[in-house]
């Protein structure tokens, strides 16, 4: 088992970059997710690691070995594909044995390894079935067993859960994490589902427009996104551009005031882009008092109920603010036109980008 190191990976299609200067080190035994919208280059990057695509420049290391010129069939990787890619003409047993037969193992060893792998995914009794006789979740498990049977250096997962329904997807996420932990294999998951990435991964890399925008632990990328792209891609977010008025208080273009914590540089920048997560906003239904820093009156434009929370679109001073209020908060959904008071703590005002360092 080994880690992965990518050094300056670029893929240039002549008229556009699919990937640009990607630097990444994935530690041994780590569960790493590549997250991004479709077309961001995450699958391309995975295919470069697998060897299906060649990078224009850069080096891929698996363990200590430079695999740039090694074809996929010699890289000893496990891979699970989006629609499982089980061989339809082979039984479950033969699917799992497929890679083992390339390893010149004895028949008995193959059989033992297949049984072990099927036990790992709890499908021992399905060995003689054909793929078409399995449910989506079962096919998924077979695909995992097949990938792990060859004892690969690294496990690559290409949107493996996107074809499953919501409930099954949750189950399989647990299952995947369980298996990964028990085998201890370095795993790279490609997904566009932020919740999946957040709940499964040790670390996440967010890709946008072929550029690796941020790498960090789930908590970090959600709470401290590196830039506007990451902030908007993971979860919902309110973003304000504001100008310093005094101390650490800023005034937004909409006219309300934000008070943030001190900037990490020690010197307050003049113009800043802030973010504020909707669930960090407190809602008061009783409207009283004047607007102060981090407290603003708003008008409901639209609200919707999603079970564990209520999503409210509000307007304050001409800009829109998204708010997620916990379910028990409102006996009935707030009606459009209703006035609310929104407030938040200053530590929830996050510096996203500094637009202008100079003070006036």
């Amino acid at each position: 088992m080994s880690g992965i190191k990518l050094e300056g990976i670029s893929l240039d299609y002549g008229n556009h970059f699919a990937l640009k200067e990607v630097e990444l080190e994935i530690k041994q035994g780590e569960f790493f997710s590549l997250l991004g919208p479709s077309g961001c280059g995450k699958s391309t990057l995975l295919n470069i690691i697998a060897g299906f695509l060649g990078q224009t420049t850069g080096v891929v290391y698996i363990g200590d070995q430079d695999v740039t010129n090694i074809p996929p069939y010699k890289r000893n990787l496990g891979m699970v594909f989006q629609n499982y890619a089980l061989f339809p003409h082979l039984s479950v047993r033969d699917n799992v044995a497929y890679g083992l037969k390339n390893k010149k193992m004895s028949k008995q060893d193959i059989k033992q390894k297949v049984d072990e792998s099927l036990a790992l995914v709890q499908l021992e009794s399905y060995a003689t079935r054909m793929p078409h006789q399995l449910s989506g979740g079962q096919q998924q498990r077979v695909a995992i067993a097949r990938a792990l049977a060859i004892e690969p250096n690294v496990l690559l997962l290409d949107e493996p859960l996107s074809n499953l329904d919501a409930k099954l997807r949750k189950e399989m996420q647990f299952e995947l994490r369980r298996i990964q932990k028990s085998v201890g294999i370095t795993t790279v998951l490609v997904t566009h589902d932020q919740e999946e990435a957040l709940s499964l991964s040790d670390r996440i890399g967010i890709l946008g427009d072929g550029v690796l925008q941020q790498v960090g632990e789930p908590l970090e990328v959600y709470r401290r996104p590196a830039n506007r792209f990451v902030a908007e891609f993971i979860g919902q977010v309110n973003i304000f551009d504001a100008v310093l008025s005094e101390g650490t208080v800023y005034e937004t273009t909409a006219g309300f005031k934000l008070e943030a914590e001190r900037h990490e540089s020690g010197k307050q920048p003049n113009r800043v882009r802030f973010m504020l997560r909707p669930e960090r906003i407190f809602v008061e239904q009783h409207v009283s008092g004047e607007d102060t820093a981090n407290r603003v009156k708003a008008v409901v434009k639209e609200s919707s109920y999603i079970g564990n929370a209520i999503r409210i679109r509000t307007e304050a001073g001409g800009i829109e603010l998204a708010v997620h209020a916990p379910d028990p908060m409102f006996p009935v959904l707030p009606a459009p036109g209703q006035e609310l008071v929104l407030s938040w703590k200053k530590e929830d005002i996050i510096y996203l980008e500094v637009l202008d360092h100079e003070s006036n």
Partner: protein
Amino acid sequence: MKATRQKKFYGVLLAPTLIFLGIFLLLPLIQLLILSFQQVDNFFEVIDGYTFSHYIEVLTTPVYLKTIWQTLFVAVITTVICLVLAYPAAYLLVRSPKRWRAFFYILLVSPLLTSVVIRTFAWIILLAQNGLVNDVLMKTSIIDEPLDMLWNMNAVIIAYVQVMLPFAVLPIATAMSDIKGNLRSASMILGSNRISTFFRVTLPLTIPGMISGAMIVFSLAAGSYITPLLVGGRMQPLLPLSIYQQIMQVYNLPLAAAMAFTLMVLVFLVIAVLGYILKKWEVRVNG
């Protein structure tokens, strides 16, 4: 009410076809079957009474047995060669860039739209003693004497393969393009190189296309008489040729009918076996 009215409407649409094919396809075959059991006099005129003697003649006379054997052999060889050649052709058709693909399709379909007489005629020009191949070979001094390439079974098989190849390529290409791209990726990541991937994934998954192609090529190769007549000569021991001669030269219609039915049964047997394998395979893979 509505459903029955619809059904009636569809029935009305289907009826003319069934009547037409009943009269001009089924009826003549039945007539031919009856004819094959009818007795003949010394001048091969049909007389009263029924007999198995024509079938016995076809199935016991050494020369006819050899003919049957040879017919099947030539059909099998043609089928095998077509299937082997079909793979690289299908590969180019499926995996080449888009604008090339259209070009390959034209090359593939255009022979199907050209009369078999014309295509066979081209082989005479090519293979005759004073034909193009000999001309080129002699002018380049590779040979001194013209080669005898026409009027033998090899010429028949070459012409057959050229005439029937598209029927093998098209279904294999379809089966190939139906294979999901990530199956080959999966095979490679599991340690199979491209050759091994071809034999373990692509080839098995194109079996349906291979069988469909084989069914058509085999039945065409076993049942054609124009091509062997023109490039093989009249004397080749092939059942369709024997049938043609019995009718056009010997005028022994019942014997020709018996031969025709023997041929048809043989062809249908082979097709039935292939069809059975195809069905088995599809049930196994697709449920």
